């Protein structure tokens, strides 16, 4: 979980404490389309997983990102 939080807090330039399940493009100003791509590629790299394009584009908040990583058999 720390790894995933670190990715979000680094890319979105937020303190780790504000990375909660509800964190979304609506609540985080820096979560734009470009940073969404960086989030995707960094998560895939960190957990050595690959998402389909549709899976990745469906993520709407941090909670859904956790669920997607878990769905690839990764323990968080």
């Amino acid at each position: 979980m720390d790894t995933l939080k670190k990715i979000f807090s680094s890319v979105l330039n937020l303190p780790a404490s504000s990375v909660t399940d509800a964190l979304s493009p609506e609540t985080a100003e820096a979560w734009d389309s470009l940073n969404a791509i960086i989030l995707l590629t960094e998560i895939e790299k960190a957990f050595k997983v690959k998402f389909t394009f549709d899976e990745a584009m469906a993520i709407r908040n941090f909670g859904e990102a956790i669920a997607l990583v878990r769905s690839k058999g990764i323990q968080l």
Partner: protein
Amino acid sequence: MDFLAYIRSYAKMKGSPAKGLLPFSIHLITNFTDEVLEKVLGGMCLSEHIRPAITRAPYKQYPLVLKDTSDVLYKSKPDISFIFFDINPYQHGEFTDSSKHTEETLSDIRTYCEATKTLVVVSLSPLPYNSPYGHFFSDDPLFARAKEWNDRLVALSKEVSNLYVFDTNTIVYRLGEERVRDMRGSYAFDIPFTNDFFVALCHEWLACIRAIRGRSRKCIVLDLDNTLWGGVVGETGPLGIALGPGYPGVAFQNFQRTLLRLWERGIILAIASKNNLADVQEAFKKNPHFILKEEHFAAIRANWDDKSITIADIAKELNIGTDSMVFIDDSPLERERMRKERPEVLVPEFGGAPEEYVGMLLSLKVFHQMSLTEEDKKKGRMYAEERQRTAILKNTKSKKEYIAELGIRIRIFEGLSNDIARVSQLTQKTNQYNLTTKRYSEADIRSLLKDGWHIYSAEVADKFGEYGIVIVALIAPEKNAARLDTFLMSCRVMGRDVEFAFLEYIIQKLHTAGFKKMTASFIPTSKNVPSKDFLPDAGFVERKGSKKGVKEYALDIPSHLKGKAKRNPLLTIVE
């Protein structure tokens, strides 16, 4: 630092004060979505205390902005410009449809380089790994076009002096295409590369920035045991260390070979080792497997002092800053201590398997220079030669002995045989050993020759190496005397009596030419104190009527030649 740290630090930069950071402006011109690249480049600059101002060409508009000389890319001259056009290896695009786009873009790059006069680094496109034509790529038109683009860029860089080429394929060789190309990114977002690739690319680009800002390192300070050789020489003796054929000795040898290649292009080498000096010297003398010899090192310190003190001592002796040094030591304790005491010294992680040493050293990318003059290449050698001279000075009792030991040779040039450019350069930059500090251009020197002046210069060498042309005399023929208008010598050869031998040679020549008298003056400046006693020491007599601090001297040639030694017998004059 890693990718995440770079992009975060760049995000934090906006709105933060620029205190203590070097401002640096960059143009970034690519043919893909390059915001991620900008973030990595920006973050990496910040990690080296550089505050970047990056201007990107708008997405896909490079063909327009490169043609528009009123565009901001033309109007603002950046400190450096990075151009990188990627060619997708698996589908036709603008660069592979026809050669028209290639020709046009090459011409645009040329115009941009010539107009901005800034340093432009163009990166070659990674070439494809796979092809429908199999691995014999020459038949694949797509591959051929991509290769042609790269070849043409290299050719262009040979014609345009401010254009440099970086081959991104070197990154592909290291990481592999799979870790470099991101096909999903390419098709979905027009980001054709992985984040790892951007980091590797920016590492290369940063090496250019360091080089043009004088931040490349000049000197490598090395530990010995388990760094330059395997084992501990104090325990195993000079022949017991691991160095030479077979593993791991051959790996240490190869590390030495790489250091030697750096030395050959001008990097200074020094040793800071906790050892008995006698053991170290014995190892260098008795073990036949050394690639590096004692003579390659500008300083050898084997003692039990704290290395942070030793390194400062070496820096002082070589007259370089500790911030231009790299410290290589396999001991984590020594590295940690150095980082704490001398944070300006670059202390990379080092050690473990010796076969990795070469890679660890070269991956630092801190020794780059954009161009190398012949003088630069000699630097490592000149510093090492100086150490040997100093060693003689310590061991000899008198100056006479020292000079004799050096085996100095002087080769004198007269009239048209002079290197006019060098003579002029010396009049323009010599301040300390210079009697009159008169500056002459190359054209001036030529017209003096035409006016019948006697012009002498000399090249000096000793048994350790060559100094080049370091001493000049310009003599104006006047009615009753030869006037010594200019007499100067580079401080590199001060204290070796070269000036006296050179002058005696000239006096002899003037005598043959029929001159009976020589006049000279000393014009004091804030810097030329070292040469103030030269004329009286050489036998000149001060004349009455010297004014405004300028001292006038004269020398009677016939009586001078009858008198004391004509030449310093310890110096050899090569005619």
